[in-house]
């Protein structure tokens, strides 16, 4: 009886693991329940791992436990020491490891028996291994780009899509061959090599501004790989966890796509590079109004409502803590300070929210684009910090602009627009921003962190408001 119950324990453990993992995503939907979601996920994983260890036929505990301790010993310090500004590259790196694990398990399954598997099991294994290895190298590449180890700009050459798709077709061809009949010994290593190479080539044409979509897509691929493993091992818990995960990454990349007005085919083929090829026709040198920190402070201090628009530039300059100080100063003077967050601001979905939360800015001041766009018309100041394309009015009316149709934050509706920017160089996509030449725009040239710090000082020096 007892051994029977113990032998079946894994089934119940897997069932509960699948349920808790689903609940962990559900609870993550709101900030009030989100930490419960993490605990649910952890319980789910504990159940899945313990259940597996107790399955009949599982031995070699020493090797397994040592491997897990090594993994935890590397992972824990990584998570604790990572600075919050590095979340995007960290997530990419973490994807790389997860995808590698799935790919290696698939490879091990393939080599486990003397004769390689065929048929339905091989279909699942092929998909698992293909997605696993390509996600591995693609994530490493994304990490390298986000960490500035390799140039962030898109690397394109003529016929790139042809080469990429051709490579994928060859890999898929070998995959089909291996499914249909036991292929010669060289086929499998070549298949792995092509998958790895495809991952690298997939990321080459992708620029920093498109990273939010790509990271979400890689997340989806990693989930799909785990899901395919579920089919190969006939493990329904893996299918459930992998599929919810793949769906999650997929829907996020769709949301990111919509926020940039890109088509969905564009996502699936990873062909993001085109935008930068857009027109770089410089506008005739028009005058811009620049202002000092003192001018800016004077206007800000005497405003009723200020909306701050953060972008990747704020993250690069690590200006979020100074922005919090500015918020505190202005709120103390009775100014209503709100934040407008564009879905693709930064390098991954939700990037700005995490940075502002790190700086201890309460999340009820952070607003999504649809919720706050109507409020710009009643704002005295829209303060743009390190954002560019997401506030470019050309997206609304200039059909020749590569970002035409992209939903933007309507900062130009505010009474005064202030833009903190290093110089007049156009942003990542190389697109001129007419906002800067607008008569009500004040350009504040300088490093975001240093400039905001100066404004804070000047605001503090302003005469106190009559209570």
């Amino acid at each position: 009886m007892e051994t029977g119950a113990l032998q079946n324990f894994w089934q119940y453990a897997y069932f509960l693991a699948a349920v808790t993992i689903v609940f962990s995503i559900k609870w993550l939907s709101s900030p009030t329940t989100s930490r419960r979601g993490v605990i649910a996920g952890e319980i789910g994983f504990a159940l899945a791992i313990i259940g597996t260890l107790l399955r009949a036929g599982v031995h070699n505990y020493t090797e397994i436990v040592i491997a897990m301790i090594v993994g935890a010993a590397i992972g824990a310090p990584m998570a604790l020491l990572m600075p919050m500004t590095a979340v995007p590259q960290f997530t990419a790196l973490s994807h790389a490891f997860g995808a590698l694990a799935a790919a290696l398990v698939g490879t091990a399954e393939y080599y486990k028996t003397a004769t390689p598997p065929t048929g339905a099991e091989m279909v699942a294994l092929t998909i698992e291994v293909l997605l696993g290895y390509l996600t591995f190298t693609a994530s490493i590449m994304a990490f390298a780009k986000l960490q500035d180890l390799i140039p962030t700009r898109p690397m394109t050459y003529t016929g790139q899509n042809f080469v990429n798709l051709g490579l994928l077709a060859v890999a898929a061809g070998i995959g089909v061959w291996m499914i249909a009949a036991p292929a010669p010994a060289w086929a499998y290593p070549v298949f792995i090599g092509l998958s790895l190479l495809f991952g690298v080539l997939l990321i080459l044409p992708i620029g920093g501004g498109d990273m939010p979509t790509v990271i979400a897509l890689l997340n989806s691929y990693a989930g799909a790989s785990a899901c395919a493993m579920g089919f190969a091992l006939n493990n329904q818990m893996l299918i459930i966890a992998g599929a919810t995960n793949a769906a999650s990454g997929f829907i996020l990349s769709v949301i990111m796509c919509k926020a940039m007005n890109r088509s969905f085919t564009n996502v699936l083929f990873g062909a993001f590079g085109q935008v930068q090829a857009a027109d770089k026709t410089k506008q005739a040198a028009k005058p811009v109004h620049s202002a000092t920190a003192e001018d800016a402070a004077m206007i800000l201090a005497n405003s009723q409502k200020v909306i701050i628009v953060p972008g990747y530039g704020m993250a690069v300059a690590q200006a979020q803590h100074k922005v919090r100080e500015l918020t505190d100063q202005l709120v103390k003077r009775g100014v209503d300070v709100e934040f407008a967050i564009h879905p693709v601001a930064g390098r991954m979905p939700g990037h700005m929210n995490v940075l502002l939360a790190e700086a201890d800015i309460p999340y009820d001041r952070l607003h999504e684009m649809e919720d706050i766009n109507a409020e710009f018309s009643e704002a005295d100041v829209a303060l743009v910090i390190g954002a560019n394309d997401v506030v470019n009015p050309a997206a609304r009316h200039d059909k020749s602009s590569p970002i035409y149709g992209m939903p933007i934050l309507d900062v130009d509706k505010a009474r005064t627009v202030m833009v903190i920017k290093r110089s007049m160089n156009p942003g990542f996509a190389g697109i001129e921003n007419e906002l800067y030449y607008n008569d009500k725009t004040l350009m504040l040239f300088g490093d975001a962190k240093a400039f905001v710090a100066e404004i804070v000082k000047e605001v503090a020096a302003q005469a106190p408001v009559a209570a």
Partner: protein
Amino acid sequence: MNSGFSLGLLNVCILFLAAFLGLELVRRVSPLLHTPLMSLTNAISAISVVGGIMIVGEAAGMHTSSVLGVVAIVAATLNIVAGFMITDRMLKMFRREDKRGKK
């Protein structure tokens, strides 16, 4: 469940239901939490650790497959531990406005 086909079909069924559930769940996640959501699902994708444990656990002696399995367990555990810890670290930072302020 008396043939391989019906079991396979059952798995496909589970796949569709789970994918649909995932789409519906994630659509409801506030954009405020998209980054923690990504790092949580990132940890979940390392559920492949189960496959690694099966490979190593069922192996008789160390050979190519079990070595690959051990590396897979290391990589997956790294992803799990780091993914959950970083998610929690991020979520701890999100707070509402204190009542001291106006409104």
